[in-house]
């Protein structure tokens, strides 16, 4: 029987590339493709894939919270996280969320097949930098990984994390309520709880918090011209 893989990435062109890579392997099939975290959760519950590959920077529900919710639903899910950065914080969050594989997007063409093979053999797969960090933590009696910064979102519930991402993406309380099938009043209660717990005072503070804690990711442009074009944008 073939190994069934669910892919979640918001870029169809990336999913095409990943599919093409994974389907070269005779014993594997991509059983589904999701374009955001919420869709990935629904598809995983329905399709019960052997391996789930999730991009971290997805809209509506990011890959780390998707991983947390998947494993909360069924701890047997095997998740590989795809990421554009292997910063200490992202590594900590991915390990904390329960990912068994951690692959840099830039190295996916080289590492993803090895990562899926590792999970298939009930092993884990991490980039060398993750291994170094984990080893440093072990040698330092487990303190190195957690001593510098407290874990992010220490006090938020799963629902509050979802609401945080959607608000930081610019959605109104009403839009969040529709997306999560809640009443607007419930969303507003979540919103004020989030602000209180995190000591934030505005949506701007919330957006900054969400970026700093990898709840949403932003794309930095290369250096643009300092002089604006003469024709103004309408």
């Amino acid at each position, binding site marked *: 029987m073939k190994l069934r893989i669910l892919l979640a990435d918001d870029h169809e062109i*990336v999913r095409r590339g990943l599919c093409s890579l994974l389907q070269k392997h005779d014993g594997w099939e991509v059983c589904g493709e999701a374009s955001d975290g919420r869709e990935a959760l629904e598809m995983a519950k329905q399709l019960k894939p052997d391996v789930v590959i999730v991009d971290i920077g997805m809209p509506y529900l990011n890959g780390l919270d998707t991983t947390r919710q998947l494993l909360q639903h069924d701890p047997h899910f095997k998740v590989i996280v795809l990421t554009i950065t292997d910063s200490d914080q992202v590594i900590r969050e991915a390990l904390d969320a329960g990912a068994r594989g951690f692959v840099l997007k830039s190295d996916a063409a080289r590492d993803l097949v090895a990562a899926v093979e590792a999970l298939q053999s009930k092993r884990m797969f991490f980039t060398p930098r993750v291994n170094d960090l984990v080893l440093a933590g072990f040698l330092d009696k487990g303190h190195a990984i957690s001593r510098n910064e407290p874990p992010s979102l220490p006090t938020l519930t799963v629902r509050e994390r979802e609401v945080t991402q959607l608000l930081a993406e610019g959605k109104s309380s009403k839009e969040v309520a529709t997306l999560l099938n809640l009443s607007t009043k419930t969303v507003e209660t979540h919103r004020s709880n989030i602000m209180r717990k995190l000591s934030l005072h505005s949506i701007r503070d919330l957006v900054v918090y969400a970026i700093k804690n990898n709840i949403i990711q932003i794309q930095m442009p290369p250096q643009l011209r300092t002089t604006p074009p003469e024709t103004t944008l309408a």
Partner: protein
Amino acid sequence: MKPKGATEPQRVVCTELPRRAEDFMAVRILLVDDHPIVRQGLRTLLEGRPGWEVVGEASDGLEALDKVESLQPDVVVLDVTMPRMNGLEACRLIQGKRKDSGLEVLFVTQHDSPQMMREALDAGARGYVVKSNAARDLLEAVEAVSQHRLFTALARSPQALW
């Protein structure tokens, strides 16, 4: 159904040239992106089109300059943010060197921004497509620019460029 007041994303396609049999000619394409997995996705999409050939790949602007010289493609599909030399700089240099060769540059980028689109067109590109919509827009865009027509499409709500 779209909510009331929703607007279609801005897409600009110049269609002055009539469709002719020779419009469906072979197109030789160079792919430039620093992520191999993105290049793979673009390649599978482009090679599904009869007559189109991905003649080479490059992972940054400098490599793209070399490959433009050695492979002489008809269309360069170019990312903006890349190591060593970004796509805007590469585009300026490519167009400077190959001004009269008929080569066209099409940007495929994550930057869903009118300002970046203007930068790209000012650098000499003939097309601009946002990566999140590449699967929808890329074939039409390559077809347009290979016939020296303008193709631009942002994913966000419209903001007039001109």
